[in-house]
């Protein structure tokens, strides 16, 4: 297994610097957003989530910002480490009668230079 591979936007940062990964979502009715990290050969892993009634949420070394006005989501990683190198996906949750419907963005590859 692997991530999308080709034609991904790539962000290259120096170890120790902060990283900001951006995502534009499409549906103004989406009420829940998640950032996933995908390392080569693995499935996506949950990093952090945010509900639409919030603008900001912080985790360990990560912060997610939500701007509903322009339908924009960002993931900030503090003091980026080589282990942060991966593809990052944002996902928006559109509830329907049956349950959660996660729709994913195309992904951004983060490369951390030692």
């Amino acid at each position, binding site marked *: *297994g*692997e*991530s*999308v*591979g*080709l*034609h991904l936007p790539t962000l290259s940062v120096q170890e120790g610097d902060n990283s900001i990964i951006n995502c534009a979502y499409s549906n103004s009715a989406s*009420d*829940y957003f*998640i950032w*996933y990290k995908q390392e080569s*050969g*693995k*499935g*996506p*892993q*949950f990093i952090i*989530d945010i*509900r639409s009634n919030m603008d900001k949420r912080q985790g360990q070394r990560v912060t997610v910002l939500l701007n509903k006005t322009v339908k924009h989501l960002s993931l900030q990683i503090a003091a980026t480490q080589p282990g942060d190198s991966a593809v990052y*996906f944002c*996902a928006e*949750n559109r*509830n*329907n*009668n*049956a*349950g*959660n*419907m*996660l*729709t*994913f*963005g*195309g*992904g951004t590859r983060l490369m951390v230079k030692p």
Partner: protein
Amino acid sequence: DAGITQSPRHKVTETGTPVTLRCHQTENHRYMYWYRQDPGHGLRLIHYSYGVKDTDKGEVSDGYSVSRSKTEDFLLTLESATSSQTSVYFCAISEGGPAMNTEAFFGQGTRLTVV
């Protein structure tokens, strides 16, 4: 991987043959999903299940069918595989329903190649 097992992990099959991928969970989560991942498209939902025998289509369901006869197993079947179905397939599970926004947990993926 949150108690999710996909099998097989890799498969090569010929065009026109049927293929079934299995997802098994040990978390007793109600919701299960099948996604495919292709370059340039990220992850796209194929089908999902909101309970035993309850399934619905996602955005790329053509050419696929699913079945869920028990909580822990969700099967994805390609009735007649085509080269366009060469992809990496991910199963996911989540606990929450419409009123509960909860994250989905993913399996390790199945790489399917149709030749």
